[in-house]
């Protein structure tokens, strides 16, 4: 019996939350993640028959998301909002935990990386892709991927201890 092809609605129902989490990590911005995913899903829905016929439709959609993010219009804004606001005249309290503050600092530095460096780090450390897979997603050579990763990690002062471990895949398979 022929295997049933996943419909777009079925794909969205099953995988959209995970895809949105990926987009949120990739972009670091809820609004941008929403824009990028909407744009990609609209295009994907229009030619879903061909995408559904691929071995890994979700991987293809994620690749579309990466490309969409990288081609987004360059920004002219100096100020990037972060977190929730406090009503003016409200008392501002410092972050209580040093660990939380350090993570926020790391995320702030991550947000300032050039988009391709950021994409490479997200694909390697969040998605758990190999450099070859990342190169395929970005349409460049593996050596270029390593260069982006090396520069990105240096900017973030992250010490590289070895090749990405398969355990990283666990992170994105939480639901």
């Amino acid at each position: 019996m022929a295997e049933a092809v996943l419909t777009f609605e079925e794909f969205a129902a099953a995988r959209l939350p995970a895809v949105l989490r990926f987009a949120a990590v990739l972009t670091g911005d809820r609004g941008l993640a929403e824009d990028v995913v909407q744009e990609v899903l609209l295009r994907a829905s229009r030619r879903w028959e061909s995408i559904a016929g691929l071995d890994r439709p979700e991987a293809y959609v994620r690749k579309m998301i990466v490309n969409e993010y990288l081609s987004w219009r360059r920004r002219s804004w100096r100020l990037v909002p972060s977190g929730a606001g406090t009503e003016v005249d409200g008392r501002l309290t410092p972050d209580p935990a040093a660990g939380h503050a350090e993570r926020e600092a790391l995320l702030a530095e991550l947000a300032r990386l050039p988009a391709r460096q950021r994409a490479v780090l997200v694909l390697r450390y969040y998605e758990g892709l190999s450099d070859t897979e990342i190169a395929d997603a970005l349409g460049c050579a593996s050596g270029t991927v390593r260069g982006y990763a090396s520069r990105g990690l240096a900017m973030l002062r992250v010490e590289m201890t070895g090749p990405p471990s398969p355990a990283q895949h666990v992170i994105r398979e939480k639901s």
Partner: protein
Amino acid sequence: MTRDGNGGPMRTEDDLRHALATLERHAPGADAVLAAVRGAAGGGARLGRPSRIRRWRPPAAPRWWRWPRLALVLAATAAVAGLVITLVPGSTSPRPGSRPGQAAPPGSSPSHAGLPSAASVGRAMLTAFNGVTGDIEYTTQTGINKGVTADVYRTWSWPAAPAPGQWQVERTLFSQRTPQVPVLAMTEDNAVAYTTPRAGVQTLRGRVTMVCYSGTGQTGCGFGQTQTSPGTWSQVNQKVWVSASDITGAGGLSAADLARGIAKGYWQVVRRTRLEGQPAIELNETGRGPEVWDPLPTLLWVNARTHLPIRMVNGVGHATVSTNDWAFLRPTPANLALLRVHIPPGYPRSVPTR
């Protein structure tokens, strides 16, 4: 966490993994995204045309306008002048790239014997900025799709180059065309005020004032994780990152960042020309910078006398084009009034949702 050779903190790859995983909390709701996609596929947007579905969700500053990843088309630079149009009908903007009464930097008169090097143009621009650090930097960013203006961001930033400890205000006025309102309509007016941090510190708290206009179809105006309802205004203290810096290389679009990129060789000088009645040096982005946005080509015009930027056009020759215009305004009382968010009569103050 360990220490590096200089005693500074060194992070581990696991630190990075855990930090990235925390960003999942920013994931948008699946139902809203899917509803927008369904609406665009079956409603306002026609199949086969460039989609503009981001118009259906509440705008959140900062905004980006999508660029289709199209095959690179090398448009003849001579055709560019025809593309450069007045982008905001009825606008009373000052002449781009100029400042009334500004003297040309010594030795900056253009030589017609040959083109200046990109490095010298970049250096001259940086010198020119020293003369306008206390001015209001006014930029207009316009997105055009197939000749139709899709959105306009007007930003006033004062002072143009603040010193640490100095109070800075940045106001952005956002207009867009939506399926519900097919003419450019005022959508959002916001201002961020903050004390400029010392060098190297880019995370700070600012006072964010937001007016969210009603009647354009949006359900709210977002800024980070806060959202202001249409027809109301809000004011909160909020954490922001100052993103434009050398770190972002050519990623930032501040005039100073552009100048640094030019000095580093990310642009090449094309020719001398005239734009908006001004003598101009035309430059073309080489694609050698740390970040290149599709689609090239991107052209930039710099005033040949003042060495201040006049206009930049991304995607020349493509269906979608983005332009940036610059002007530097003296901080007169009238011009400083442009930094204030205008709260329309009858708009109540609201508490933004999270």
